[in-house]
């Protein structure tokens, strides 16, 4: 019997807190795909806060080791071409679908948005199916 995933729960709670803070204070949704893609052709007043948020995320990755949390040494997917394909699909998919695991999965589902609940179910099933095909076929 493995241990209860406390770090996963705590980390998740921090994500929820971050999203809540951004929404209450700045009125914005903490969906990383949206925050990033909004940097591409930024409308007026849309660049600064996005860049700041992302900077915060990067700073966190440098602070976390002090708390004992490191970045993984390597990624399981072997080849760069596969990684590029994955990135393209994630980019296209999240832009078309207007959201990702944080945008739809946390903020959207958290608002009980029908659109986000369905999007989350679809991308979860899709990811699970892809993983099954990749690992077991």
């Amino acid at each position, binding site marked *: 019997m493995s241990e209860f995933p406390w770090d996963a729960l705590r980390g998740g709670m921090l994500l929820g807190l971050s999203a809540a803070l951004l929404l209450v204070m700045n009125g914005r949704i903490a969906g990383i795909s949206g925050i990033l893609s909004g940097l591409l052709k930024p409308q007026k007043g849309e660049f600064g806060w996005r860049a700041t948020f992302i900077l915060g995320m990067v700073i966190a*990755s440098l602070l976390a080791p002090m708390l004992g949390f490191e970045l993984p040494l390597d990624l399981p997917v072997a080849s760069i071409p596969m990684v590029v394909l994955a990135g393209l699909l994630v980019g296209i998919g999240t832009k078309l679908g207007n959201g990702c695991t944080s945008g739809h999965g946390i903020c959207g589902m958290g608002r009980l948005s029908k659109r986000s609940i369905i999007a989350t179910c679809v991308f979860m099933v899709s990811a699970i199916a892809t993983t099954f095909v990749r690992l077991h076929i």
Partner: protein
Amino acid sequence: MLIQTILSSAMFTRLITLIAGVLFGLGMMISGMVDPVNVIGFLDITGDWNPSLMFVMGGALMVFMPIYFLVVRRLDKPVCDNEFKITTNNTVDPKLLTGATLFGIGWGIAGVCPGPAVTSLSGGNLAIVAFTLSMLIGFFIVVRIESRHENVG
């Protein structure tokens, strides 16, 4: 009046955004979502199943939902800005379904999605950099197709 001035000042707003970003990044690191092994372990339901991602989502919703329903829904506007920028789009259309499906496939291939990718950039891992660049290209492709669509239509 002074409190109002501070709360709506650009510097304070920017500071809050930075703090929110740091909290998000910490959440990514502490939850283990920056390690694709954990993500794929969750997605691999017929294999040696790792339920961690479920607890990450659960933890996030456990905090977000009460604050959304008890605080956000009662506010006319956010504390530091003039209006909430939340989409009112509630349609489930082919674009959404296609997008979610494609995103799922990409996520399933590498076990990486936007949040972990950005958080991991400081590590300088080639695969993460390649993923992030490809993701940006993916955004760009959709933006181009959509603007061309708008011009033709």
